[in-house]
């Protein structure tokens, strides 16, 4: 894998971290949502990360039958991918609010089990990881620029 492939790895991580941030902000936005198309309150969503070879140019070429000298199990080719978005299995929080239109006969409303503090911490984690990967892209970019200097 060359340096451009290295950038693809960081790129895959930036994409995954952004998807994680999207899911977390969705959780935050729906912290009070009691009605969903599936019925019932909104359920907190989690992202599941897994290693994956990024869709690099050379990968595309080998997939298209071109003979590229690149092992698919290259340990450096390990980017990251959101493998699944799963719903939290925690039961909804029952809140007493008889005036609420979705309250049951006893006056309780099923609210999503979302802790905004937890979500904010997760969001910060995603932002930090995104930044770190952006730094890695810059470092790799610097290396590419420097090796181009050899031509001058």
């Amino acid at each position, binding site marked *: *894998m*060359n*340096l451009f*492939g*290295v*950038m693809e*790895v*960081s790129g*895959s*991580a930036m994409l*995954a*971290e952004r998807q*994680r941030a999207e899911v977390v902000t969705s959780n935050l936005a729906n912290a009070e949502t009691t009605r969903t198309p599936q019925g019932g309150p909104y359920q907190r969503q989690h992202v*599941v*990360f*897994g*290693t994956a070879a990024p869709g690099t140019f050379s990968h595309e070429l080998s997939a298209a039958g071109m003979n590229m*000298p690149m*092992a698919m199990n290259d*340990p*450096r*080719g*390990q*980017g*990251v991918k959101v493998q699944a978005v799963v719903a939290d299995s925690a039961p909804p929080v029952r809140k007493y609010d008889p005036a609420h239109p979705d309250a049951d006969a006893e006056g309780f409303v099923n609210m999503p089990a979302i802790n905004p503090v937890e979500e904010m911490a997760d969001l910060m*984690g995603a932002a930090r*990881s995104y930044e*770190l*990967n952006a*730094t*890695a892209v810059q*470092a*790799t970019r*610097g*290396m590419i620029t*420097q*090796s181009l*200097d*050899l031509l001058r």
Partner: protein
Amino acid sequence: MSNLIDNGQTKLLGKFLDLSVYRQGLLTSNIANIDTPGYQTKDIDFKGELQRSLSGATDDSSPSFGPTVRNVPDLTTRPDGNNVSLDRESMMLSETSLKFRLAVQLMKEQFKEVSMAINDGKAS
């Protein structure tokens, strides 16, 4: 007889650059997988690999060419089975970039000498 272009110095620098790129790949993989459960930090024995490639033990053209990747010991594993250390990876990232830059500069100096020989001892 040694010549200006293809000598031990340029060969060493070439291998050094190759290994730096390889290591950069592993570092970015480590950074990319900082939140992946079960992922273990990977690295190469830089000095050992450099010596190994210079001793002629490896053949670049053989398909099995490539340094031996190993898991980095003595890192704290988090409850999700991941042991990527942010500090280690940031440090190594700067180190690798700087070393790469150094090798490129040294390589340029090598070529400058050749250029000088071509241009009757004048620079450029």
